[in-house]
């Protein structure tokens, strides 16, 4: 095999895509498992292990090809999933650079929000990075901003509208569920209430993990396969190579197992005090909303739904206080995820473009690694692990460093 510059760039893209899948895993462990860990229905270690296994199984269940994943927001692929011919003229260099810069933007944003302990949407980060890199490379027309007619598509239909709607829907459902559950079990002893609901909670949390594995690992598989087709290493648009599936499944499962403890802590302890009946109501609401939306083709972010549900479960239980300061920080992070991941993606593309050739790809890979390593090193100042993930939430100590100067 001849190692061409394109081959090196392709390898970097695949590596970056798997790294993104890994961040996707640890960013989203909280979605399924935060409430089970907070109510001690599962020990922290057991929760991440269960979630990781189910993500792994889920990733292998996604037999259907998700090759058209980028078509939701940008125009670099034909409708059958094959890349646009003008992008693969130069051994796929143009296409690979867009993917590389987009993924680097998404990873940078994911690691930063993890450092701040904020659950932000990994799919928004991916879409944001790709949109930014595409605007930098092909101009504004390369982005599909809004769908045509009543088919929900583009940045508006697949990202903005679902992000506005889905957390509210989940919140309402969880609020109603929590209210009903506490009303029905009002006369029961608190201790029995807690133990009675644990099994239900674990079952719904497992359902969420499985569904996450099928949905999210698929996205990375699509991106990797697109890169392989673009550089001429794969031709089928109806199948993906087995090693891609295996690698993506392992990446998302190991990410899940590592556990984004900071984010688990914020979601399980930071928003509201969660009790078992409430946790089950929240997880059921999330599962119902996610599966119904997937049936209707409504593209939503698991993160938004699960956070909405947890807040709703707090609104539904009498005597619970929702920490709106924490919720507001999250809301802000959601709003800026797409544009900021986009800015980083665009910046990465420009850096690579100015350096040119293979050096450009290597440079942004190095920048991305440096940022991620710095943030990881920085996080050692206040480590959060399975040992202290459930400690009492102290607003002053737990507020992210960058905004702790505020009043809340």
């Amino acid at each position, binding site marked *: 095999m001849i190692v061409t510059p394109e081959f090196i760039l392709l390898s970097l893209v695949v590596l970056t895509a798997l790294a993104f899948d890994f961040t996707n895993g640890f960013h989203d462990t909280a979605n399924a498992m935060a409430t089970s860990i907070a109510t001690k229905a599962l020990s922290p270690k057991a929760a991440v292990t269960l979630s990781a296994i189910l993500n792994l199984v*889920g990733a292998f269940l996604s*037999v259907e090809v998700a090759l058209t994943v980028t078509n939701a927001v940008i125009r670099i692929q034909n409708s059958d999933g094959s890349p646009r011919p003008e992008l693969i003229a130069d051994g796929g260099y143009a296409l690979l650079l867009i993917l590389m810069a987009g993924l680097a933007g998404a990873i940078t944003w994911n690691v930063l929000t993890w450092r701040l302990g904020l659950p932000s949407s990994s799919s928004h980060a991916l879409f944001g990075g790709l949109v930014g890199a595409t605007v930098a490379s092909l101009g504004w027309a390369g982005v599909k901003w809004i769908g045509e007619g009543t088919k929900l598509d583009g940045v508006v239909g697949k990202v903005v509208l679902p992000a506005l709607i889905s957390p509210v*829907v989940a919140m*309402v459902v969880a609020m109603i569920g929590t209210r009903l559950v506490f009303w029905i079990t009002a006369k*029961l002893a608190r201790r*029995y209430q807690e133990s009675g609901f644990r099994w239900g909670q674990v079952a719904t949390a497992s359902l969420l993990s499985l569904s996450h594995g099928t949905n999210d690992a698929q996205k990375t598989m699509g991106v990797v396969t697109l890169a392989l087709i673009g550089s001429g290493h794969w031709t089928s648009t109806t199948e993906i190579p087995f090693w891609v599936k295996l690698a993506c499944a392992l990446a998302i499962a190991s990410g899940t197992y590592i556990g984004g403890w900071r984010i688990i802590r914020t979601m399980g302890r930071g928003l509201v005090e969660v009790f078992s*009946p409430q946790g*089950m109501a929240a997880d059921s609401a999330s599962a*119902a909303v996610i599966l119904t939306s997937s049936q209707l083709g409504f593209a939503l972010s698991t993160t938004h739904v699960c956070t909405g549900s947890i807040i709703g479960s707090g609104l539904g239980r009498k005597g619970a206080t929702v920490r709106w300061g924490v919720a507001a920080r999250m809301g802000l992070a959601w709003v800026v995820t797409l544009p900021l991941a986009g800015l980083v993606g665009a910046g990465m593309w420009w850096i690579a473009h100015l350096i040119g050739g293979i050096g450009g790809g290597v440079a942004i890979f190095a920048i991305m690694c440096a940022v991620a390593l710095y943030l990881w090193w920085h996080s050692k100042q206040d480590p959060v692990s399975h040992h202290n993930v459930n400690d009492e939430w102290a607003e002053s100590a737990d507020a992210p460093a960058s905004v702790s100067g505020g009043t809340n």
Partner: protein
Amino acid sequence: MDQVLAALDATWRILLIGILLGAGLPALFAVGVRALAWSGTDGAPTPGVRPPLKARLVAYLCFGVAILAVLLGITYIVLHGFGINVTFNGVIPVFTPKH
């Protein structure tokens, strides 16, 4: 504008089914939990004493429906993963391969 209307159209369906399944099933589970404590003392089943048959029947029926719903959810995820669309004609599921 069409996009907003399309999103709102999806919203009320998700909300309706969400409330039915997402709030209804935990409520049903709660009925089961409560039933087991019917003859107990201090709002919990008495340890070592089997709850009366009626209570057990109600509880297992509730838990059964909830477990069935979770299994259906898993089936749905698996079918989707294998590229099979599930549509509901009334309440009878219809399976069609995706294209």
